[in-house]
């Protein structure tokens, strides 16, 4: 390790002042040239030293950024973090009493159909759960935030996802137990009455002095409380409200248009005019944004967002569009177009948020659909 002066092959340079060995050594140069020659190599050498120091610093910066700047997790890492690995079934809390959106067939075994059910199946497939590995459990409106559903024996069960027309609101977003995904449907609030109701209801103020039913702990209840002093009854199931409306217990039912439209659609199939319902489009410019509640599990939220983003960003992925067309777009088939809800009951385009922070293969620009699992 010791330093050893080299004498034999050292070129003839000044021992004290290191010289840039670029000059010819034939004959002594004039004094002024020699001074300039000495100064220039020194400057050059110092400049090179600075370059070396800059490179070392750059190497430190690059090394530090590689070590400390964590790249986004991959989908597989998110599965691990979301505790989905080894999980046998994905439990999803759904409504179950809303025709067209989330309806549990009473006949035979528990079969759920509707727009939200198809969306739930799409998300579950992207999370790696084929149809047979998804368990739908009916969940009541008040239980959506705490994600507790009931199983077939009436026992409370914690669900992994709540896909139950849960609207995003600033107050709900602040609650630590609630974790909203990006929205999967935009709808608005509306009112239904019996078909015998004369006139049109265009604002919530018109519900004054009426007996109105809505879903308890819902955004509709809060809107109604703000807008009117009607006699408001909050129920846990919308089907109870609609049954009450048909039985003259209530005069009107108000909640999200997409929820009510299915009931109106069903009632129009009835031959008894008294049992038919009428849909009113009210002028309220507030969108209801339905989103999935994944609870505090952030990795799971990213995965759900990834599934929804895949569906909206990939033009080849038509799963959302098919679900919409099958369950919402095809409502009111026998109603003449001029009698249909004027603006539709929900926005026919899937809401699309920013791409979730997931590390993926560069050629997966639009996150291709997980073929074979979801279709």
């Amino acid at each position: 390790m010791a330093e050893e002066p080299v004498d034999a092959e050292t070129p003839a340079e000044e021992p004290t002042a290191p010289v840039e060995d670029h000059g010819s050594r034939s004959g002594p140069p004039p004094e002024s040239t020699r001074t300039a020659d000495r100064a220039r190599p020194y400057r050059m050498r110092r400049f090179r030293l600075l370059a070396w120091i800059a490179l070392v610093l750059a190497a430190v910066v690059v090394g530090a950024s590689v070590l400390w700047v964590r790249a986004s997790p991959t989908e597989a890492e998110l599965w691990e973090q979301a505790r989905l690995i080894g999980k046998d079934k994905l439990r999803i809390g759904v409504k179950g009493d809303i025709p067209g959106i989330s309806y549990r067939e009473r006949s035979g075994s528990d079969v759920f159909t509707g727009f939200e059910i198809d969306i739930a199946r799409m998300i579950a497939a992207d999370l790696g759960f084929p149809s047979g590995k998804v368990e739908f459990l009916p969940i009541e409106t008040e239980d959506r935030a705490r994600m507790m559903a009931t199983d077939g024996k009436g026992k409370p069960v914690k669900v992994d996802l709540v896909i139950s027309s849960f609207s995003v609101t600033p107050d709900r977003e602040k609650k630590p137990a609630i974790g909203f995904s990006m929205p999967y449907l935009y709808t608005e609030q509306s009112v239904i009455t019996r078909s015998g109701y004369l006139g049109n209801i265009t604002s919530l103020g018109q519900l004054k002095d009426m007996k109105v039913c809505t879903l308890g702990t819902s955004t509709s209840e809060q809107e109604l409380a703000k807008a009117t002093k009607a006699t408001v009854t909050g129920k846990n199931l919308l089907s109870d409200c609609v049954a009450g409306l048909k039985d003259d217990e209530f005069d009107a039912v108000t909640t999200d248009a997409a929820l009510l439209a299915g009931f109106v659609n069903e009632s129009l199939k009835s031959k008894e005019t008294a049992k038919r319902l009428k849909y009113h489009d009210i002028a309220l410019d507030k969108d209801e944004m339905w989103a999935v509640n994944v609870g505090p599990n952030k990795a799971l939220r990213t995965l759900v967002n990834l599934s929804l983003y895949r569906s909206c960003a990939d033009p080849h992925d038509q799963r959302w569009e098919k679900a919409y067309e099958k369950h919402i777009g095809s409502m009111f088939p026998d109603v003449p177009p001029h009698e249909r809800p004027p603006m539709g009951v929900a926005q026919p385009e899937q809401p699309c948020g920013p791409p979730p922070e997931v590390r993926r293969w560069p050629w997966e620009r639009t996150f291709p659909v997980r073929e074979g699992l979801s279709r």
Partner: protein
Amino acid sequence: MKETGRVKAAPRNQEWLLALLPVFPLVLLVTRLWYASGQDTQTLLLLVQSISPLGLLSGVLLTTIWVLPALILGGRVLGTLYSISARRSSWLVRAAERLPGWVVLLAVVVGVFSWQLRFLPTLAMLSTAAVGLLVRDRFPDRRELRAVVCYGLPVLIAVLSYAVLWPAIGAALAARDVATAILLTLPPGATVLLTGPVPEASARSLTHGIAIVIAIFTPFLVGVVVMKAPILPLTALQLTENSSSRVLVGYLVSSDDQMSTILEREGAVSFVKNSAIHSRVLCPDPGAVPGTWVDLHGWYVEQSVVSWLAPTRPQGPVDPRCQGRSSD
């Protein structure tokens, strides 16, 4: 006897050190197995018994082959730099001078093929600097040659590099990827300043400091890379036992006509009767997804030439069995 040159300055009978060279990969291999076995001696013994050392060694060499060009070129450049700056000899200078030219050339070729695109400007910088310093060292009187190799060549390479790399540099800046932007921008421009001596006073601390830091950190870096590299295939087995079905995800250690030995990801070892295996699937390696999308005409900066040219298998959907769920 008078020493005739700095190369022959230290005949110190240190050849026995060469015998230690194979020890490092061996230690790495055993540490890797110990790490995989979750620090359990019995599991370690089982792995040692089942794993082919040659296969494992080639796996380790393949994952660490990119280190060799960095060490060889780095040593050569730093040694020659100190030699021409201070005109003194040291262990670094001796090491640099003992590296045959063909080894350095081979290291550059290995680097070209094994280094990621984002490190290729650094490789070009080191190679050009090595050539420039060599010319200064060997031909101190060839002024024209020095002008061409130490100034002309680096400037030409810098201009070419920027011309070729500008789409990737733009993409890195747009993606705010500082590390990639620095790696693509700085080395070509800095090359022209690395082909000559530095002030004598700082030469030793600069060159030897960098060399010592490299010598200290490289084993750790190699160790981390080897510890993270897979040594056994990750498989998922769907088992049917007592009419119930379960999925076992783990590394397949061995398989004979009776039993399959699986090292689970948590470190536990399972022996499974082959008759209980309903199906088996190979799970993808989740760690290979690149961290940045910056690319040069479709060549992603985290890909080496070889990986860019070689065909890739399209990523299919992950099998539910790899997530520990039965497929039916």
